[in-house]
Every structure is written in C-alpha cells, then in structure tokens.
C-alpha cells in the first residue's frame, strides 16, 4: 500500500521533467531520423525515397565545401585557443598579484551572448568604415584598411572572434585541473634544479593529461558544431567562404533573415539526412580523437 503510494508520488514529481524531455527533446530527434528517408519540403505530402537523400549528399559540392570550412574553422580555433588557454591557466595558477581579477577578465566573454558579440564584432571588423580599420588608417598602419570580412580574411576573422569567446572557458577548466596537482611535486623538482619550463614540460603537462584530453574533446565538439556567431557575423559569406556544416544545415530548414540567402528553398527531408551525416562526422572525429589520445589518460 505504502509502496504504491510512494511510486505514485515519484511518478507525479518526475512527470513534468519526463514529459518535456520526451516531447521536446527525444521526439524531435526521432522526427529527423524518420524524415531523412523522405522527400519532404515542409508542405504537401512526404514521399519515401529510401537512401536517395544520402546519394544526393555525396554529390552535394556545397555541403562538402562546408565540411572543409568546418575543419579549417575548428582547426584554427583549436590551434589558437588551446595553447593560449593552457598558458594562461599555468600563469594564473601561480601566486601572482591580481590573479583573481585577471581570471575574471579572461572568463568574461563566456557570459556574454555570442550573437550580440557577433553584432559588435561586425561593427569593429566591418571593411567599410569599421572601427578597427578607422584606427589602422588613422595611425598609418594600413593606407586603406583591411578587408576583414572579405573573401581573403573572413575565415581568419571568424576564427579570431571564436577564440575570443572560448579562451576563458578552457582556461578555467585547465585551472581546475591544475589545482589537483600537488604542490610538493613542484617543490621537490625545483630542489632538483628544474626550471619553470622544464617543470611545465615534465610535470604539469603529463599530470594534466586526462583534463587536457577532455578539454580538447569538448573543444573539438564545440568547434565542429558552432555556427551562431558565424551566422550573425558573415551569414556564411562572402561566397560561402565561411559557411560551416551546421550553418548550411540551418539554412535548409529556415530561410536566413539576411539579404542573399532568403530565397533558399526549405528541404526538411534532405536537411534531416544532412544533419545525420553531420552528426556522424562529429561523432567520428571525436571517436578518432578519443582513441588517438588515450595515451594522455595515463599518468606515468
């Protein structure tokens, strides 16, 4: 008797959470899973076409361009943000003056909206009368400014914006990892005459292995999936130069509010298939990385 009463209570308390998760979390994924075998443009009836969407993906040059762009974007973001955040964490883990304030400063970008900051960065990097170019011209560093969002530099610019937003977050995760390394290891090594760089190379890096592995994993997944700031900053332009995988995917489902792409046709069936392939690509990269980096998980 009491037991059934308890179970009823448990289910009633679980219901709101379970219902919301099921209806708005699980069902949409199942929906996408179904429609990737259909030709469905969002109106009319959906027609089952088997694997046709997948053979179309193989021939879709625009999609594969976006995959290449995603790798360039993710690679650039990682190459800049991981070493920088690790270095910052190593410095700010020492007892230097003002470290609390500096930590707070470097972490600040992560609390601000990416979309809002993308708008701000747009006014800063804007090629014509952008704030940065105004200063470059004023101080005679460049005679006519740099075309930051033009075909040549747009990718670099979106990477820099992404690094700005990410460094503080990874720094903090590294700091948490560093705090688990016992202080006396450093003390005994400095008695043995190791300098700070040697200590970093032979103590900090190896002992940080598991954390490093996990943070890089997070960073890879985030970089492969991120598109919000690119969407606001460049809309994937110019001429698709910054179009990443998940932005291309977004455009198959929703016309982008901007100027050029708003004529795009909605393709729910094909988009679902693209989503599946994209998710598999992200999953595969993570798995490959995970197995390749297993060595880091061992602390010798």
């Amino acid at each position, binding site marked *: 008797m009491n037991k059934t009463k308890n179970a009823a209570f448990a289910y009633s308390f679980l219901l709101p959470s379970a219902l919301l998760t099921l209806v708005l979390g699980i069902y949409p994924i199942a929906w996408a899973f179904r429609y990737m075998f259909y030709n469905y443009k969002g109106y009319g009836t959906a027609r089952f076409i088997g694997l046709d969407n997948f053979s179309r993906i193989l021939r879709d040059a625009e999609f594969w361009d976006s995959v290449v762009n995603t790798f360039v974007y993710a690679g650039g973001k990682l190459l800049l943000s991981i070493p920088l955040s690790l270095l910052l964490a190593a410095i700010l883990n020492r007892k230097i003056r003002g470290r609390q304030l500096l930590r707070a400063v470097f972490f600040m970008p992560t609390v601000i*909206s990416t979309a809002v900051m993308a708008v701000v960065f747009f006014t800063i990097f804007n090629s014509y009368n952008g704030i940065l170019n105004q200063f470059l011209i004023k101080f005679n560093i460049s005679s006519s400014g740099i075309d930051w969002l033009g075909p040549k530099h747009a990718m670099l610019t979106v990477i820099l914006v992404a690094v700005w937003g990410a460094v503080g977050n990874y720094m903090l995760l590294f700091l948490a990892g560093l705090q688990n390394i016992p202080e006396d290891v450093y003390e005994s090594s400095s008695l043995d005459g190791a300098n700070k760089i040697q200590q970093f190379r032979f103590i900090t890096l190896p002992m940080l292995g598991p954390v490093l592995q*996990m943070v890089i994993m997070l960073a890879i997944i985030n970089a492969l999936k991120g598109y919000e700031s690119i969407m606001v900053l460049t809309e994937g332009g110019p001429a698709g130069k910054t179009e990443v995988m998940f932005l291309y995917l*977004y455009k198959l*489902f929703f016309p982008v509010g901007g100027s050029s792409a708003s004529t795009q046709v909605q393709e729910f069936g094909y988009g679902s298939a693209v989503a599946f392939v994209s998710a598999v690509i992200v999953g595969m990269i993570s798995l490959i990385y995970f197995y390749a980096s297993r060595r880091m998980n061992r602390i010798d």
Partner: protein
Amino acid sequence: MRTKEITGKTVLWIFLLALAFVTLIPVVITILGSFKTNIELTTGATVLPSKWHFSNYANAWDKANFSTYTMNSLIVSLTTVAGTLLVASMAAYVVDRMDFFGKKIYIGMQSFTMFVAVGAVVLRPQFDLMVKLHLHSSLWGVILILISAHASIFFILLSFMKGIPRELDEAARIDGSSLGRTFWTIILPLLGPGLGVGALFTFRGAWNEYLLPLVFTMTKPELQTLTVGLANLKYGISAASQTHYMMAGACLSILPILVAYVFANKSFMQMTAGSLKG
C-alpha cells in the same frame, strides 16, 4: 640572474596585460560607442566620445523598440529560470531519494538529450509541435522548449541533493510530514546554493539564446528578444545609419549579464570548473 628575473617578469606582465586588453576592448568599444553619434562611430576613429550622447539610449529604447525587446527577454529568462529549477529539482528529489521502475530509463533519457544534438533540425519539429499547441505566436513556445532542455541543471541539482543528509527526510517522515511537504519545506530551502548556481546558468543561457527566439519571431517582431532584435538591426535597410543604436542596444543586453557576473563571479567560476568532474 637578477636582471633576467626582472625581464622575465616584465615579459609576463606585458603578455598578460596585452591579452586582458584584447579581451576587454570589444566590450569597452561597445560601452563607449553607445554614447557616440553615428557619424563619430563610422568616421571618427575616436576613443572617448567627443560629446556624451545619453540620448542614444532613450532613442534606442523608444524608436528601435528596445523597451519591447528588453521586456520579452526578461519574460523569457525569468520564466525559464523558474520553470527549469522547479522541474529539475522535483525530478532530482525523487531520483535521489526514491526507488521506482524506470529510473534508469529516465536518467538515460536525460543524458541522451544532453549529448546528442543535431543542430537546427530539432527546431523544426519543435516549431511544428508549438503550432499544433497554438503556442507558436507567443513566447510560451520558446519558454517551454528552453525549460525542456534542463538535463544539465538536473544533474547539477542531483549532485547537490546527494549532499543533503537523508536523516532529515527520515525525521520529517516520523513527524508525519508527507513526501511533498518534506520537499517544499525541508529539501528545497536546503537546496538553496544548488538552486542559485542553477538559476545563474539557466539565466545566462536563456538571456543569451538567439536561435530559438529568432525562429519563433520571424513573422512577429513584437515578440523579439534583445539578441534577436539587435541582430536584426544589422540586417535592417538603414543598418549603416544605426550603428549607435546597435551599440546602445548591445549595452542593454550585455550589461545585466555582466553585472550578474561581477556579483556571482565565484559561482560562475566554480560551476564551470566543477562541470569538469561530472
């Protein structure tokens, strides 16, 4: 040796200060820019405004509809925080304290939604569902979807729940308190710190959310939130003549979260660092 140490220290500090400068400058540009005229912004190359135009805020508030956007952002964020905390804490309570059939399935479901994300695809069926429920032309659709993504808050609260001694439940039961009453009068108040960080994180997420409100307000500008309204200014026909409004609007959307951050800096730091373990 001594000079070497001093050079090392100098290099270190130049590096740190340069990075801090780069990190802060976009926000400083936004704040200072929000007081400049449009012409000064687009051709001026000045650091400080030549004259402080506080009227930008009044104009952005009235003419560029930022009063509406702010209201919408507040409604969405505060309701999402309240809903998320309620739903997640109730679930965390029974999952931690009780045994029932389906518990493992529920936990598996929550982890699944946290780790499997296929981008914008899920927005489409979510939107269609809201059309069927007649919630697509109100902010409730956005709020419900935001609340539904409470998996991470659930796990955070679960770990806090484990820290509350079970003896308290026992004592309450012996005193004749029902399970529901125990939750509301004993557990929830003790869960305070957990609810605090949960609120902080949910608020940050909801206040900064861009895609969801964008999709739901495509045909209804009066429902736009700050992030959406602001990004739309960029696309507007007269975008070039509104840079100062854009800056003022950006400040309106950055400052609340920045103030919250300054006050709750420690919790932000601890939570992010703590997520490493769980």
